[in-house]
């Protein structure tokens, strides 16, 4: 029916608003994560989704930050969460002490172990690039990889089929793989195409 009800990308469209929002959300997620650490030693497992849902509940009660809906909130919060996780990893690397998030090693035979903070940072950088090229794909990567939502959950959030989400995930991670593979050769993702 009408288009006004389905206003797209309401939150991310406005840079000024988004910056303020980013900071607020970041602080809120950080606060919730620290509480989680206090309780359980680290934010892991279901912790992140819990933190996100709780952030929604706490922020939807705050004046001035009402999100158009839960799904849009989660998509945006997932990006903020990624920043929080990567910052945490970086901080931990320099301070050499326990952080908020427990990172999992996915097995030594995998070429890109996420236990490797370097790799995680590279993924983060590549994701920023992807977000400028195909924001939808970056959002799905944030939701799945950094927040642990399942394809079904993401599909339900966005009102599309699970198959679509899965295909977009494949594309997104292909992009990231490609971008990171290009890096050791000292070529940025935006480097001029070599002949």
């Amino acid at each position: 029916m009408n288009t006004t009800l389905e206003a797209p990308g309401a939150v991310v469209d406005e840079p000024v608003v988004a910056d303020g929002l980013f900071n607020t959300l970041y602080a809120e997620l950080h606060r919730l994560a620290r509480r989680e650490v206090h309780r359980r030693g680290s934010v892991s497992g279901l912790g992140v989704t819990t933190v996100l849902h709780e952030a929604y509940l706490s922020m939807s009660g705050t004046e001035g930050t009402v999100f158009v809906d839960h799904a849009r909130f989660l998509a945006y919060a997932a990006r903020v969460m990624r920043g929080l996780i990567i910052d945490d990893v970086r901080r931990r690397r320099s301070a050499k002490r326990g952080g908020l998030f427990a990172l999992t090693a996915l097995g030594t035979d995998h070429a890109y172990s996420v236990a490797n903070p370097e790799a995680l940072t590279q993924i983060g950088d590549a994701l920023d690039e992807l977000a400028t090229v195909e924001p939808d794909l970056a959002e799905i990567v944030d939701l799945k990889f950094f927040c642990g939502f399942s394809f079904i959950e993401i599909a339900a959030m966005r009102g599309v089929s699970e198959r679509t989400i899965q295909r977009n995930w494949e594309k997104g991670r292909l992009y990231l793989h490609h971008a990171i593979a290009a890096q050791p050769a000292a070529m940025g993702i935006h480097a001029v195409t070599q002949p």
Partner: protein
Amino acid sequence: MPSLNPDRWRALSPYLDEALELPTADRAAWLASVGARDADLAADLRAMLVEQDLVHESGFMEGAALAPGLAPMPSLEGQVLGAYRLVSPIGQGGMGSVWLAERCDGRFEGRAAVKLLNTALIGRAGEERFTREGTILARVRHPRIAHLIDAGVSPTGQPYLVLEYVDGQRIDQYCDEHALGVDARLRLFLDVLEAVAHAHANLVVHRDIKPANVLVSVDGQVKLLDFGIAKLIERNAEWDATSSAGQSALTREGGAALTPEFAAPEQLSGGDVTTATDVYALGVLLYVLLSGQHPAGRALHTPATLIRAIVETDPPRVSDAVVSQDEPQEALAHHATQCRTTPGRLSRALRGDLDTIVAKALKKDASERYASVTAMADDLGRSLRHEPIGALPDTLRYRTVRFVQRHVRGVAASVAVVVLIVGMTAIYTIRLSAERDRAQKEAAKAARISEALTGLLTGADPIANRATGEGLTVRGLLDAGAAQMQKELEGQPEAQAEILTVMGRLYRRFGAFDKAQALLEQALASGRAVYGTEHPRLALTLNDLGALLAEKGAYATAGSSLEEALSMRRRIHGPEHRDVAVTLAELGRVYQDQGLNARAEPLHREALAIRRKVLGEDDRETAVSLSDVASVLRLNGDLSGAESFLRQCLELNRKTRGDDHPNTAMTLHDLGLVAAGRADFASAESLFQQAMDIQRKSLGDKHPVVATSLNSLSHVWLAQGKHAAAASALREALDIAVPVLGGDHQLVAIYTINLASVYLARREPAAAEALLREGLRIRALSPEVVPNRRRILSEDDWSVGATKSLLGAALTGLGRYDEAEAVLLEARRDLEAMPAPRKPEMKATIARLVQLYDAWGKPDKAAAHRAQLAS
């Protein structure tokens, strides 16, 4: 392949979508066919697909960045919960997911919806809320509410609800896909109301009514879903004294996950959530169904504007929304098609009762909404049967509209006329509330209203625009409308009396006093012909005519017209009626304007007494009367009396309108005048400043009311010798007033004269002279040219003398003694001729004469005037 740049990626992206959907075996053939058209593209794609294989083999980014538990949840498909087996997910909400399930114990055939609580929320507040949904659903059984079949906890500790499965679609989509007309939509909506009313009768507030929660099944049955954040009304909760039966106080649950688009103001501002909250959401839903738009319109696009829209802004009327110029015209046409009509016809169908019903449901103040869902349903039912609806926010506006339907449509009036009438009724409403709010200065209102009217008329109907062609003006439309109305209503004196009164008011608003007077007098004549000597409508016309004549400065005839209205209203309604109070206040102001405060005071006091008794101590109109009495007392020099009334008025305004309301600001300002009258400049300054801060915040920096406060502040600053501050305040006042009010407005004259006196104090007589002459020019204009004269300066005649006196001082300063003497003597004559003595001004004038003769070298004349000063 080389590294990717964004353009290359975008070029590849759609092909990758295609490729990733293909079975691996088909990829080679597909690449070949792409290669036949574009070899480079095919080469890049081939490289990407090779890399894709590598990604898979290496398990790149498999799992998640975080520890186990974040890995994709094992699919629940096939899991058995109680007697049901989960088949496929059908939805996901904040609380969990919903699955389609099939009965698997063989006892019954059948499908159900199984709602699973998000495991992350187990053991938290969510679980409690989840259980409550079960409890609530168990108590609301209704054919139009998806009912609870079973509830339980799985062996793994997963709580679940088994609900009736509704195979249907959202109500808004259903209406559009089935191209339901307005009446069919209303009938469907009545079913929704029935379901909600049933929930309310069982003390359950839904709190999340929105299209996604109202499904229409394939057989056309409405089903209300998702009581996920519904709340039980506690039986022993304190009953809210001000709301009507059926609404009880409900504490708001912290951080409820509501849907902002359908949230009522009180849900966002943390107020009590009651059945009225559902009434609001139903209002939004009805608005959406009828107009295809959300009432917040474009404000929906950002969270901040959405909140402001919900809490502060009244939505456009639904009939205006469907022909809004702000919306894409194709979208409007599309929606109208889905209602089996055209935008113009749709607008006309919605205009009137449906506008009223939707607006009443969407009132910001919960106590002004329908007291119950049933009351709303009653009105909708009546509207469907074309019977007069019951609850009406504004009977006068309603009467006019009804009248139009009865008469004008009957006479097959042109579209233009119908449009015009709708515009007028809107203005009529504004006018009425303005009448009650005289504490607010009206200077800018005419401008704002003409803007609103222009918007209404041009936005309302393109046919009307075409008919009038270019050079469309509100006045032009009004004139055309007036002529046509008079012609078409010939032989219908009753209708004429009513419409002419409305139009007379409109012309008055535009400052077209003669035209207004002619119409009102004609209305009066028609009215007397129909109603004889006495009728409420006749009294209304007399009241309006009196107010108009007063505005023209014809106080004597104004007084007699108002006296007649007053005695008629007293005879019809008895001595204590709100209409009597309106005329009393009007008459009191007429006397006040003539400087007859002694006669005005008892009238204002009587109006106040009536309003206190009939409307209550806490009514907004009572506040207006308090302010009227205070102003009489202040002008009589009874400053402490004035202050006491103003304090009551302030408290009342704060209570009924809030700290940031313009009326509250105006009362603070008037208290500042009292302080200034006592020469307590520090208090006066602070009060004026507070008033101005509120005005700037609530009305904007460019509102003429801000200029009023700047002017008052300049008085204080001038008295304190802060000349620079006073001058810049007055310059800002003029910068605000001239563009809005025009250069001939009396307020402009006042600011100009005051600025001149600042220049005089700074010993800059040349600058002062020019400003004073301009001020006098405006003051000399007839009230016909200058509307609102009487409201600006209460006893305005002496001010001309006072201004001449200032001019004399300026001329003395310039050494033009002959001219100065003539002007000062004239000023003294003017002031002497005033009915009430103006001692301070007289004294100042004589002192200026002394100054003049001293400077001129005429010591004997100077001495003679010195002697007068001493006496």
